């Protein structure tokens, strides 16, 4: 097959029109040859012999008549051992290596191999000559960091293949052939430890997709208890600027109980990525005792980097996630922020002069967002193992208004919604997830009845609070007032969590359960309270003790002291419980 060539006929921003001879496929990668450089681009529209390509670089200096080479391949990522711990741009170029080559700036036209060619991996075959294999089947393994990295038959090879020969155990680099396979018609293929996969196609070599069941523990109380995220689920965090989206994502990426975290920093501030880049290698992963960076991949396409690559970065990230999922691992993909990704689509759509939808976003916005989130899920692989991907996306709605198209399109397809509110972040109530606006469709770590019971207090308390603003404290009945205080109490000691406190930052499910039960014993009790003044004082005192409790590790003297203080305060009010409350408390034993 001869290579398709073309010539530039028009330039408009980062969109270039090309007249070509031969065949071009949709999403095919093309290189524009200009000023001695090759600029990577992706075909996004084809009309007769004219293709429009979006260029992943600044197009300064491109002229009409410049040559274009079509590669015949769709935009792909390279999959193989050595991905973990890497820092890539949106097109999977390793940023540290680029820095070595070009210094401070990201010069256009510099593309580097994603994986190291020099590292030798210790390969142990698990298949033998004569075996019949299909795509995604395991050929052997190499150790990568703390994981057993499975070398698989490329996902793009359809049909059955027979292994003709396979290398014996030993050290190989990624470019060395490790096996030769043959299909029924006698076509032979030589495989190395890596292969390419087009990013915009979902990897589909698994036996079946299953229903999300187990919760993913994030060690953030308000999420785990009230708005849980299923391992394999999807959730979104919309919020106005300054509401703490990024901090929440960072906390999640540290403490979530998954095997691998992939962070797609998509169109956000470079400074935030730098914090992750510099801090993650210093933090020890509580699960393995190794550096957190060893289980992390960062895809970083910050706001000033080329906008077309921003669009690609989200797909690059999810393709890497799918690759590790095929090894039977649990992956968390954090995309910050999907609004920037949607805006990148809007920019291109505008240049293509497509008829705009709402707020000039393209009409296909919703289906594209849905297709992205649908790449999350738990699957049973052909060998019976399970692998999962959880996707958490932040949304940055314009003006903090959740009615805008990206938030709405996202809400339709996600399983949990953690709406951040300006009001709560202004009041320094972190995490600023609004307890009344947010929701989750997933089962959590607590019995649903208990959560509902607690949530009722929040709702009722908010109602009383709103009423009190009109009629004042004097016009509120003592009962209502106690309700109000109970809701505030729950908010202060359980929903709010100090992510900068070493103890409070991450709370294990067991501790959450114990604390939740303790909170419910206070909320659910009929208390002997005589007046509002006394009630307020009592709750404030209790709150102080509870905050001390939250900040101290289990078994320390402060912990025990605070606990007994709470117990004695509670006992002093001789609490009584209804049958229903007792049942709920029993369910938390």
């Amino acid at each position: 097959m001869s290579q398709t060539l073309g010539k530039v006929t028009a330039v408009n921003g980062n969109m270039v029109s090309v007249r070509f001879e031969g065949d071009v496929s949709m999403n095919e990668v093309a290189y524009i040859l200009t000023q001695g450089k090759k600029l990577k681009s992706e075909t996004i529209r084809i009309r007769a012999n004219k293709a429009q390509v979006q260029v992943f670089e600044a197009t300064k200096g491109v002229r009409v008549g410049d040559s274009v080479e079509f590669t015949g391949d769709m935009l792909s990522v390279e999959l193989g051992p050595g991905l973990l711990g890497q820092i890539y741009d949106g097109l999977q170029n390793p940023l540290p290596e680029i820095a070595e080559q070009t210094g401070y700036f990201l010069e256009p036209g510099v593309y580097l191999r994603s994986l190291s060619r020099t590292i030798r991996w210790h390969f142990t075959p698990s298949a033998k000559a004569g075996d019949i294999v299909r795509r995604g089947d395991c050929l052997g393994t190499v150790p990568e960091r703390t994981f057993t990295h499975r070398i698989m038959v490329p996902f793009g090879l359809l049909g059955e293949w027979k292994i003709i020969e396979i290398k014996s155990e030993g050290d190989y680099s990624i470019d060395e052939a490790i096996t030769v396979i043959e299909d029924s018609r006698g076509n032979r293929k030589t495989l190395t430890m890596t292969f390419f996969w087009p990013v915009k196609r979902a990897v589909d070599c698994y036996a079946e997709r299953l229903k999300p069941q187990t919760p993913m523990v994030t060690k953030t109380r308000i999420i785990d208890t009230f708005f849980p995220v299923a391992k394999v689920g999807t959730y979104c965090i919309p919020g106005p600027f300054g509401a703490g989206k990024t901090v929440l994502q960072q906390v999640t990426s540290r403490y979530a109980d998954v095997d691998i975290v992939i962070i797609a920093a998509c169109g956000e501030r470079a400074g935030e990525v730098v914090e992750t880049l510099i801090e993650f290698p210093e933090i020890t992963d509580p699960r393995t005792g190794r550096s957190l960076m060893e289980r992390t991949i960062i895809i970083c396409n910050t706001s000033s980097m080329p906008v077309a690559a921003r669009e690609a970065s989200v797909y690059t990230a999810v393709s890497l996630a799918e690759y590790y999922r095929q090894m039977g691992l649990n992956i968390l993909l954090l995309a910050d922020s999907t609004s920037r990704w949607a805006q990148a689509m809007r920019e291109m759509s505008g240049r293509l002069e497509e008829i705009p939808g709402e707020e000039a976003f393209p009409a296909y916005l919703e289906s594209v967002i849905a297709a992205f989130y649908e790449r999350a899920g738990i699957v049973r692989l052909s060998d019976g193992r399970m692998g999962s991907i959880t996707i958490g996306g932040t949304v940055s709605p314009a003006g903090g208004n959740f009615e805008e198209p990206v938030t709405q399109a996202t809400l339709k397809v996600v399983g949990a919604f953690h709406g951040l509110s300006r009001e709560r972040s202004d009041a320094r109530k972190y995490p600023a997830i609004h307890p009344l606006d947010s929701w989750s469709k997933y089962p959590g770590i607590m019995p649903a009845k208990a959560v509902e019971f607690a949530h009722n207090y929040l709702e009722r308390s908010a109602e009383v609070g709103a009423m009190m603003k009109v009629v004042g404290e004097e016009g509120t009945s003592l009962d209502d007032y106690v309700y109000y205080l109970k809701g505030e109490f729950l908010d202060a000691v359980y929903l709010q969590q100090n992510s900068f406190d070493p103890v409070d930052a991450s709370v294990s499910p067991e501790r959450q359960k114990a604390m939740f039960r303790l909170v419910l014993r206070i909320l659910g009790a009929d208390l002997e309270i005589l007046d509002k003044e006394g009630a307020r004082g009592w709750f404030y005192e209790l709150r102080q003790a509870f905050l001390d409790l939250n900040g101290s590790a289990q078994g320390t003297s402060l912990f025990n002291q605070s606990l007994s203080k709470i117990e004695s305060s509670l006992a002093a009010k001789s609490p009584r419980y209804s049958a229903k409350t007792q049942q709920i408390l029993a369910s938390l034993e």
Partner: protein
Amino acid sequence: MNKVYSHIESIVGNVISVKADSAYGELAEVATRYGNSLAETIRLDGEMAYLQVFSGGRGISTGDEVRFLGHPMRVSFSDSLLGRIFDGAGSPRDGGPELTDNLITIAGPSVNPFKRIIPKEMIRTGIPMIDVFNTLVKSQKLPIFSVSGEPYNQLLARIAMQAEVDLIILGGMGLKFDDYLFFKDTLEEGGALSKTIMFVHTAADPVVECLMVPDLSLAIAEKFALKGKNVLVLLTDMTNFADSLKEISITQEQVPSNRGYPGDLYSQLAARYEKAVDFSDAGSITTLAVTTMPGDDVTHPIPDNTGYITEGQFYLKGGKIEPFGSLSRLKQQVNGKTREDHRAIMDGMIKLFASYRDTLEKKSMGFQMTAWDKKLLKYGELFESKMMDLSVNTPLEKALDTGWEILGTCFEPRETGLRTELIQKFWFKGHSQNVPGTQD
């Protein structure tokens, strides 16, 4: 090279089209009967090149000559820039000689995130509302959100005068002529003109030149930063920049996204703001910008997009920097290293000030004032006059002491919610009735 074309095919707004072989982003010179003007190729379509004329489309004739220069927009970079004033096309505005040596391309590629470092040095401004409550950090990008009519340019000029930086670059966009003169005079009087470079586009200048100002300023800043200088870039007013973008994209018949602004407003603003940087082994760029909020509406596309890009914002309201809403996202990186009471004073005083605002509301509704309310009212007044007033000019340590003095004048130690050890060390001793140790 340098072919001359003598027929202009179309003139739409500020954009002309010529049948010519040009490169995207190439610069050309258009000779009109009113003088020469630069133009930049902004679109190529077949044999047609579309150029944006810096001085505007008015008076251009279809018979005017267009000469392509074979290079993109460039600006001269050398130490002789210091003290000079240029317009948005890079030509001298101060009557000095044209600079042509060592030309550099503007709007270069973005910095590799891997080569950035976490910012860690504060910039002292002598303004307590900034130094104490929302510390400005080297390499930060921070806009001042304000309404037209507020003294934002005065604030900017003051920060420029007092900030300890090697170099100041002022990018003025749509400046009123008297504001331009104000900046010039202030810097001159303060003796800072010799370390200042100004790129000024006044409201009377062609709109295309307004778009060039941030790129020119930041390209120069970047070069100086790479030479190890700490550069402060002041951009006023970015709203004019965004409005120019809007104007150009509408005349270009681009599909608008929100209130007429182009869909790439976020990327355009980010490309400029993200130039703020602390290089791992060279200098830095700190960017302070002014964004006037049309109708005091923070959800307007310009402040909204800006807020998502920048590392915080200062709200300028009623001639004062508002403590609420103002935010320096980087302050945590530096304010733990200044003085041990810095963070405590910062949080404690703001919490009390919030209570003061509540009390003011109560008062305006006619509720009776308790003893506590009266204390708060006194505190609020002192806070506003000794901390918030923009005329206050004092180093950080002095400002912290003032904070203790205000607290000591108004409250008992235990009413402040500050930690006991800090109270013992710093409590204001000028008032005998409030001696540490008397609490509880």
